[in-house]
């Protein structure tokens, strides 16, 4: 038995939708079996994972608060991945963004008149720091040909350690009873809430805005065309006069800036101070979201909501059904694997050839 893959001449839009749907179905089936093996009725688990978070106002807000940073980071990453560049250090750029923006808030803490400009300054610092941090692997790649995959990832660990050092050292709240955390930010340094007394903050709108802008850039501008062209055929793009170097630096700047912005939004929005840990792995989860959304902004938005839903649902399942939280992560990894595998349907005619062991040209 042999599996033959014959490239399709044209992509079918139906299969483009069918493939991820099939993958999702497969992941739910396998996940259901795992849940059953852990002694929980799968039907009840599905309700907890996918339906319960949608049933209450506060959990709907939680889904939006989780989906926004994921979608923002993933949209930035889509630029990279479309151009066949592999920034997998968004987690580090997120942390550095949060740290730099948070530092601005701490420096201005308690000063008079620092009301109007403080929040914009924080957001700028966060995005700027994310860009600067992403420039390290980008420059190493264009100047020296060092694999951006490994350097961007190593810098995640460095960023986490730097945040840990700053929060336990220079940025620690002197009146904080030695807890490893900074002072709480002033009200002017917090992202405003969208509704009084609720948890949804303006960072969610900012994320939506950024995703809309990215969708426009990718679909309607020459730069967007360049990104897509280089990803589809680097050789052809080079003949067309597109510069590899400039493109590499730009897509890394976009993805780093988006991750940094998401970082400072999380710090200035939900958390309100600096802590040793400011990210529950957003930068890594966003990689799943980017591929799940097929590297297109609308798809990414949908995928981010989906992943946020399962994460919130997973937290619920941990409390209500005593299902381990790692189940959610395993499910997300499985889902990504299946989506990538199902992609084969969109790109090739898959044919099972019984018996045959070697490909032979048929005589005509």
């Amino acid at each position, binding site marked *: 038995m042999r599996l*033959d893959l014959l490239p399709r001449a044209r992509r079918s839009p139906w299969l483009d939708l069918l493939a991820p749907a099939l993958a999702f179905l497969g992941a739910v089936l396998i996940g259901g079996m795992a849940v059953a093996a852990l002694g929980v009725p799968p039907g009840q688990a599905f309700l907890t994972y996918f339906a319960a978070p949608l049933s209450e106002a506060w959990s709907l807000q939680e889904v939006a608060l989780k989906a926004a940073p994921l979608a923002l980071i993933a949209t930035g990453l889509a630029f990279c991945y479309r151009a066949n560049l592999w920034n997998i250090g968004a987690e580090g750029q997120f942390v550095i963004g949060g740290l730099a923006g948070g530092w601005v808030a701490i420096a201005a803490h308690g000063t008079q008149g620092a009301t109007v400009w403080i929040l914009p300054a924080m957001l700028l610092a966060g995005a700027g720091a994310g860009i600067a941090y992403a420039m390290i692997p980008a420059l190493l790649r264009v100047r020296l040909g060092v694999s951006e995959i490994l350097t961007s*990832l190593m810098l995640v660990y460095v960023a986490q350690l730097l945040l840990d050092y700053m929060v336990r*050292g220079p940025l620690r709240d002197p009146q904080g009873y030695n807890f490893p955390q900074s002072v709480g930010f002033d009200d002017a340094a917090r992202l405003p809430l969208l509704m009084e007394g609720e948890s949804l903050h303006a960072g969610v709108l900012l994320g939506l805005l950024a995703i809309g802008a990215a969708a426009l850039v990718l679909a309607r501008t020459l730069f967007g065309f360049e990104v897509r062209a280089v990803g589809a055929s680097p050789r052809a793009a080079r003949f067309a006069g597109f510069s590899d170097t400039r493109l590499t630096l730009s897509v890394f700047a976009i993805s780093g800036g988006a991750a940094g912005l998401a970082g400072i939004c999380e710090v200035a929005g939900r958390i309100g101070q600096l802590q040793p840990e400011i990210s529950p792995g957003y930068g890594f989860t966003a*990689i799943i979201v980017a591929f799940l959304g097929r590297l297109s902004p609308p798809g990414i938005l949908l995928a981010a909501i989906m992943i946020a839903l399962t994460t919130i649902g997973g937290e619920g399942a941990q409390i209500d059904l005593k299902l*381990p939280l790692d189940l959610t992560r*395993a499910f997300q990894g499985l889902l990504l694997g299946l989506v990538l595998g199902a992609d084969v349907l969109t790109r090739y005619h898959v044919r099972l050839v019984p018996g045959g062991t070697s490909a032979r040209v048929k005589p005509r």
Partner: protein
Amino acid sequence: MSLDIVPMVLVTVLTAATPLVLAAIGELVVERSGVLNLGVEGMMVSGAAAGFAVATQTGSTGLGALGGAGAGLLLAALFGVLTVGLAANQVASGLALTILGLGLSGLVGAGYVGMKRDPAPQLHLPGLTDLPGIGRLLFGHDAFVYAALLLVAGVWWFLWRTRAGLALRAIGDDHTATHALGLKVRRVRFLAVLFGGACAGLAGAYLSLAYTPFWAPAMTAGRGWIALALVVFASWQPLRVAAGALLFGGATVLQLHAQAAGLGLPGQLLSAVPYLATILALVLLSLGRRRGGSRAPAALGRVFAPSR
């Protein structure tokens, strides 16, 4: 007393290098066949969890090591089906594997957090181990260390002294031409991926059975990624993998000793040393290689779909 400290430090360097050697030598074979498996970290951490679970259940370190290798093998099989069978993107699939592996290891290891075991026994060869100075250094390690050395020698011999090794390297350099010659590109790649997975799983099992010896979530702490960097650093040469691993093991041990000695440097900076050293090593390597060009297998990371 003070004379003993040098061999003692060397012994710890060797034990810190062993998981890197095991994971990197497996990945080297995978990459030589033209496949880039970024899932090493996931396979390794699963191997650590499964190895500890099996060893605790059976009471046997040997079975635990097998269990760890088996867990890595299973995950690698999934990766092989995706990338070799279904021609999926290797980078993205590897990341999926890492995320899946981290999740699964958490599930498998959940019941074993906080448990301890006796570390894998150190072999004692009468006469040899008791030699002054070098005795402990050469002849007093656990079986993993020797397995790692044997693997390096075996892989070197396989790649450069056997016909199958030549075929594997050729497939990694040009899958289209080797396919036209009638070599089984996908079968060889799949087997290479399985071998790499078993090695990564064994590396994880070493961590939870001999190095620490307990299981903690995400205990690999990026070692899988450092092993990947090591393959690049070694220019895809088995013997250089061993040398590079000793260098990285040295950086890890140095950092631990510096922390213990209390140099007044922040602990976080010292903890960052292995990661910074990895970046530095990659930079130095590419500076030195600018004249010669890359030695990476030419088909590395490229999708192969046979067509008639």
